[in-house]
Every structure is written in C-alpha cells, then in structure tokens.
C-alpha cells in the first residue's frame, strides 16, 4: 500500500515538475532523464548480470547516429528512423556481446572498451556520419500536432518512455530472469548446474544493454537534434559508470538516483569542469572502498552496523518433513558410465571408469583423497568432457553436454565446497532451483508481462512449501553467508531437490556436520530416495556410507577397485590397501639398502 502511494506521489511530482522550472532547467531535466535510462541499462548488464560492459555509451551513440543518418541522409520520418535505430542498437548489443561468451570480467571490459573506441573512430571519420563536425538539423519528432521542439513538451514524452523503461527493468530484476542473471553474476558454474542457459543469459544482458542504450540515443536525437562524436566518447562512458557505481550498481532505483544526482552536479559545476572530473574520480574510488553497494546499499550497511552492536540469536533448523513415498519402479538404469577416461595434461584423473546405477538406488562413491571422485561428478554433471568413454542417462548418451542441458534433464548436484549464491537470500536460492523455464520463455516479458508476475507468484508459493519441508522457515530471508555451515548444507540440498531431479549427486554432504546433523541427513536422503529419486553420494564418513548406501563403488587413483554391497566392499583387500596403504609396496629400510647395493654394484 505504501509502495503504491509512493509511486503515485513520485508520478505526480514528476508530472508537475516542469511548472516550476525555467527554460534551461527543463533542458537539464531532459538530459538527466536520458542519462537515467542509460544508467538503468548499464545497471542491468553490469550490476545485475555482472557483465563488465564498457560499450554502453557506444550503444547510446548507435541509437542517436542511426536516427540522425536515416532522417537526414535517407529522408525517413523520425519515428520510422527511431524504430530502425532501436533494432540497430539491439543488434550492436548482440554483436558486442559475442565476446562475453568466451571471456568475462576484465577481459570483457577491455574488449568492450576497444569496441567503443572503434565506434568513435568510425563516426569521427565516416562521411555518412558527418565526421568530426557531426550531423546537425535533425527533424523535430512529429506528434499529432504537439510541438516537440519545446523542452517542456519533450519532457513528457521522455517521462512516459522512462516510466515504461523503469517498470520493465524492475519487472526483469524482480522476476525469474533477473534472479537468474544475478545468480550468473555471483557464480556462473552453480547457475549452470541449476539449469540456467549461461550463453543465452549473457546475450540477453547485452540485448538489454543495447535496448536501453538505443532508447536513450533516440530520445537524445529528438531532444538535441544534433549528434557529434564527443557526446559518445570514453569520458562520458566514465561519467555513466560513475553514476551507476555511486548510485549502487545492483539496484535499478539506485542507478536512477545516481544518474539524476550526477547530471545535476555536472550542470552545477559546469564552470569548474576540471575539478568536477577530479571529484567524480575521487568519489568513485571512495564509494568502491567504503560503500561498495553505493547509495542504494547505505541503509543496509547502517542496519548491519547497528545489528552487530545488538547481537542476534542463533538460527535454528526446523524438522524435515519426509516426502511421500512413490511406488518403486525397479530395474531401469538411470546412469551408465562406460570406460570414461579423463586426463589433465599428464595426470590421469579417471582411468576407464565404468559403472551403472539402477533406479531408486543410493550409491556411495568412496576413495582416498585425489582418487577422482569429484572429477567423476564433474563429468556426470557436464563440467568436464571426458577424453574417452560415454555417459548415458536413462539410456541416452549425454557425454560432453553442457551442465545446463543436463540440469534440464533433471540431473541435480551439490558441491563439495558449497556453492550457494551469497548475495541472494535463501528463498531466492530455492526459487532458482524451482524455476524450470527455458531462457526463450522470456519473450513473455515484453508481450505478456502479467503472466510473468503470475508465474512468479506460483513459484513463490512452491518455494514456501519447500522451505517448510526442509525446515528452513526461520532462515528463509537471510543471506546464506550469515548462516552456520550445517544450515548452508541443508539449503544446498533443498536447492538441488527444488529442481525435482531424477538423479541427485551429493558431493560430501556430511562434511563439517555434527553427529545430529549427519543423522538428519541420512533420514532426508532416504526419504528422497523413497520419493523415487536415484542418489549418488560421495562421502568420507564411512559410518554414514555403510548405513545409508545400497551399493558402494570404490575409486583409487582414478580406477574402480571395488563395487558391491557396503559390507563386502569394506573387507575387500584392495580397498583396505588403498585406504591404509600397502605395507608391502612401501619402501622399508631393507628394500632401500638392497636398492643402494644394486646401484653401487
């Protein structure tokens, strides 16, 4: 209710603003709105999706220049040109996004910066773009007899566009797509294991970037009616970056606040622009060091300072509510591994490993450290492509398939060192697991946004049920990093189960758990199996393996050395040797002496 009131107040204030502004002030406001749209776009790509995109100002330029060239050179009408400009900017975003498929972070930053430089180089030299002088005398956008050459009237056009753009950005951030983008930013491997199509998501981020850049460029062309290379240079890219960082890069509203604030400051300091530049730089450095989440993150930072003083209570896990047992279908093999060999340069991590896991089994995989257990999981879940051999899932070959494809085929896993998304709440972590839509589903965002909201509500209901089942009610809205280790393990298990898997891979789920927690874990895993899920579990806690597993496979130096019921495997001589060391093979004093003698002879 308060939120609706706030939106109405903000809208009314924005609507009435021009009445209190002079001719120049309204121009400043118009420019500020354009920067706000740009900042929202950069916030989406960089803050939410984590793609270091330093070409945003070039997309802005592509939008503005396309309008300028099409209206003055090709004689198209303003709005036709605008539509084509939007398409061009999105295509530019797609092209600039291709490098993101191969590289990330600073690599991506430098490549996108290079592409931005390439763009300015082109417009300063190409005849069609008016070279260094730019293109002037763009037509005034016609609008049913309304004279848009007036800054006041153009303000309202901008306001409407901005409101729609902002609403769309907020919809993206607060729905499945935004959650996936944030998950990809925090940990793209784990996001892939949850079924997020990483390449498509990265391209989506760049499409959004191009879309917002193009939109801002069109408005710029309509407002200023003059384009020149220096409006789209690296200095302006830095200004835009400063807006997003100071405002708070992962908060869309923060980006808007940063953009508006810095636009106004820039205008106020126009006479001292050298010092202003110095000031932006210093503020960016200070924000990065002391308030990494920008203005938007300050309330949270203050709250956590206060809370630290107050001290909190220790979070508790609730009891687990078992799944309903499904009828056990027997027989069919869920997973078959045929002669898989995995090499890392000289090291053979897996050597001709073969095994089959029938439906409804709890299979234990044990072996000394470095025996290849986790490598095997990485092969099954698609992180590694084996050099030889095949992996079959329910009889269909899936060797070398990307992790997200395997996740879509209902293979879920947990990680040895926990890979929860630290900046997302527990609930959001589970929502990521629950959301089984494919990326192309996002066509609904522009066409039927209300369905997105409906889907999101349904997801949240299911997340509530899952939270109850795993006894996480008390911690549902906390950030994982603030929680005890045992609870984090439980969350990761719940997130994997959210995917409604057919095959569940647990990598050392009992590591770091206390006795009571291990007992609960065994209970949960049995219930999961009874619900019809096949479970493979890597574990060092032999007590747990013996009591829980139906069958145990022992790996040593990348080879399967034993396979069978736990009681049989435990007394297998090779297994005992692998764990305790073979005293016959180890060098003793006698054998060493013999070797020395042989060498001296």
């Amino acid at each position, binding site marked *: 209710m308060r939120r609706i009131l706030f939106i109405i107040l903000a809208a009314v204030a924005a609507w009435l603003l021009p009445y209190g502004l002079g001719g120049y002030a309204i121009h400043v406001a118009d420019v500020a709105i354009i920067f706000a749209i740009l900042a929202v776009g950069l916030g989406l790509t960089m803050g939410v999706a984590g793609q270091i995109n330093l070409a945003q100002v070039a997309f802005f330029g592509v939008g503005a220049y396309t309008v300028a060239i099409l209206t003055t050179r090709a004689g198209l009408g303003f709005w036709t040109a605008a539509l084509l400009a939007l398409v061009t900017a999105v295509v530019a975003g797609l092209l600039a996004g291709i490098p993101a498929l191969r590289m990330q972070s600073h690599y991506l930053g430098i*490549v996108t910066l290079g592409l931005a430089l390439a763009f300015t180089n082109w417009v300063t030299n190409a005849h069609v773009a008016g070279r260094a002088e730019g293109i002037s005398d763009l037509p005034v956008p016609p609008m049913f007899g309304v004279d848009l050459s007036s800054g006041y009237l153009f303000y309202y056009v901008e306001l409407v566009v901005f409101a729609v753009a902002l609403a769309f950005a907020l919809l993206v951030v607060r729905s499945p797509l935004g959650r996936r983008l944030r998950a990809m930013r925090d940990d793209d491997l784990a996001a892939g294991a949850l079924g997020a199509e990483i390449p498509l998501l990265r391209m989506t981020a760049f499409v959004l970037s191009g879309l917002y850049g193009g939109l801002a460029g069109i408005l710029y062309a309509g407002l200023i009616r003059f384009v020149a290379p220096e409006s789209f240079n690296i200095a302006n890219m830095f200004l835009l970056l400063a807006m997003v960082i100071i405002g708070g890069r992962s908060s869309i509203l923060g980006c808007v606040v940063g953009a508006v604030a810095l636009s106004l400051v820039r205008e106020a300091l126009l006479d001292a622009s050298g010092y202003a530049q110095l000031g932006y730089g210093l503020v960016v450095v200070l924000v990065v060091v002391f308030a990494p989440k920008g203005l938007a993150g300050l309330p949270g930072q203050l709250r956590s300072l206060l809370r630290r003083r107050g001290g909190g209570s220790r979070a508790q896990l609730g009891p687990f509510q078992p799944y309903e047992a499904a009828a056990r279908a027997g027989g069919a093999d869920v997973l078959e591994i045929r002669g898989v060999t995995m090499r890392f340069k000289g090291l053979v991590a897996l050597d001709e490993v073969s095994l089959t896991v029938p439906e409804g089994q709890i299979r234990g995989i044990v072996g000394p450290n470095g025996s290849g257990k986790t490598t095997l999981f990485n092969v099954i879940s698609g992180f590694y492509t084996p050099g030889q051999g095949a992996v079959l899932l329910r009889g269909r070959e899936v060797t070398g398939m990307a992790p997200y494809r395997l996740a879509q085929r209902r293979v879920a896993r947990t990680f040895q060192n926990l890979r929860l998304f630290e900046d997302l709440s527990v609930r959001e972590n589970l929502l990521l697991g629950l959301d089984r839509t494919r990326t192309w589903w996002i066509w609904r965002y522009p066409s039927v946004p209300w369905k997105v909201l409906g889907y999101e509500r349904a997801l949240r209901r299911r997340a509530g049920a899952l939270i109850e089942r795993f006894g996480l009610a008390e911690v549902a809205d906390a950030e994982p990093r603030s929680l005890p280790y045992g609870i984090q393990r439980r969350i990761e298990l719940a997130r994997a189960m959210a995917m409604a898997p057919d095959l569940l891979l647990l990598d050392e789920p009992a590591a770091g758990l206390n006795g009571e927690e291990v007992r609960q874990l065994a209970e949960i895993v049995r219930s999961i199996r009874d619900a019809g899920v096949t479970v493979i579990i890597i574990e060092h806690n032999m007590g747990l393996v013996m009591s829980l597993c139906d069958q145990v496979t022992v790996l040593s130096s990348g080879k399967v050395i034993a396979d069978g019921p736990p009681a049989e495997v435990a007394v297998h001589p090779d297994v005992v040797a692998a764990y305790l060391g073979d005293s016959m093979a180890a060098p003793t004093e006698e054998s060493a002496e013999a070797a020395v003698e042989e060498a001296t002879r």
Partner: protein
Amino acid sequence: MQVLLQTLIGGVTFGAVYALVAMGFSIVYRTMGLVNFAHGSVVMIGAYAASTFYLATRLPFAVAIVVAIAVTALIGLVIERFLRPLENKDFTLMLIGTIGFGAVLEAGAVLVWGATGHAVPSPVATGPIDVAGIRIPTYSLLVIAVAAAATGLLALFLQRTKRGAAMQAVAMDHQAATACGIHVGRSNAMAFAIGAGLAALAGSLIGPMLYVNPTMGGTLGIKGFAAAMLGGFGSMPGAIVGGLAFGLLDAFAAGNFQEYSELVTFLVFAVIVMIRPTGIFGEATVNRA
C-alpha cells in the same frame, strides 16, 4: 617490400613501448591480482613529468626519465595503499576503483598542464640511418634499446634477487608466501611501484613520438592492456610478445586503413581474443567445481 619493412620498423618501435606498458600491467596483475585500469593514465603522467622536466631544465633526457619514474612510482604507492582493502577480493570493484583513479589522474593533468598538451622535441639530434633504402630513425633505435634493457633488468630482478623471488612467490600463492615470512603488503607495494615506473618509462619514451596531452593515457592504456591480453595476462614474456604483436597490428592497420586504423585494430583484436582468450602464453585459470 620497402614499405613493408618501413611499417615493420614503426610497428616494432611502438610495440616496444606497448610491451613496457603491458609489462607494467602484468607485474601488478600477477603479484596482487589487480587489473589496473589507471595504468594508462600513469603512462600519461610519466610522459608529462618527463617532458616538462626536460623542457624546463634542459638537463639530459635520461635524467628527466629518472625523475618521471620517481614521480609515478610515488603515485603507484598511493593507489596501492588506497585499494589495499580490496586486494584478492572483489575483482569488479577493484577494476572500477582503478578506473576512478585513472579519471582522477587525467583530471589532475588537465588542471596542472592544461587541456591542450604540448609537443616534445626529439632528444636525439642525428638524422635517420639509411639501411638499404629504409630509413630508421635513430630515436626508434634508442627506444628499442632502452625497452630491451629495462626488460633485461626486470628479468634479472625477478629471477636473481631475493626480493624478486619473494614477489614471484606472492604471485603464485599469497597465503603461502605470508606463511614463509614474506611481507605481502610490502611486496605488493613494490610491484605497484615497479609497474608505475615501467609506465613512466613508456610514457617518457613515447612523448617525443606523439603529442603529449591529457587524454593520451586512455588510448595507450587500452593498447597496452590489449597487448598484455594478446600475450597472455600476467606472463612477462607474453607482455613482450603481445606488445610487439600489437605494435605491428597497429602499424599495419595504420598503413592500410589510414584514419580507420583504430577501428580495424580493435575489431581484429576482439576477434583474436575471442578465438584465444588466454593469449599466446595463456593464463591458465581452471574453475574448480
């Protein structure tokens, strides 16, 4: 053929400077995992410091270079001190923080030296040497010789001295290095100072070849950075090879596409990096699940 060789010489000269810039990037990157986007601006400050001192005092160019190195090393120490809380933590934040520092340095240069910049006369008075019809500017030879000498000295320092070895150790594993009693903070500060010193050397050398102005750092920094990437980030031989390769790419683009050279250079660079993101001497980063 002659045109080709002439382009080659120009490319190698600029390549030597890019290699110096790239080495500065790399030494900071491998010791502390910090991608210093302010590096280009440090190069620019170095160019200004050296040229101003040279023009004002009429002392030999070599003295001016030493002064410039001292000035930028100091700046490097300040940057390192500021960003120390972020080291080995959040990559994106560090990256943006150094971009902020770059803006500060650029704005500072505008305030101190003005926005227009100045030309620097070549410190070598003799005319170009003529070898089989190809004109080799003597200053080019000087640049290449100085760059080679600096590379040699750096290699000696890293491989033969205790401090250099300590720096290598920090590069490989900063926690293990701490456990061995190496003062990681001091080692990082030194790496940063050396990196900034290399930047100043590059800046002073390129001053007489270009027009010294406040925005030169942007382009030079990006080109040096690109050179480091081409060779393989964090690898010293990679920085040298990458620098030379990028200088040649630049020279050939300038020869064949004139005013569009920058466009062509960065498009080609983007394609090369997409084909081989780890560069020639590859930074091997394995993401462990």
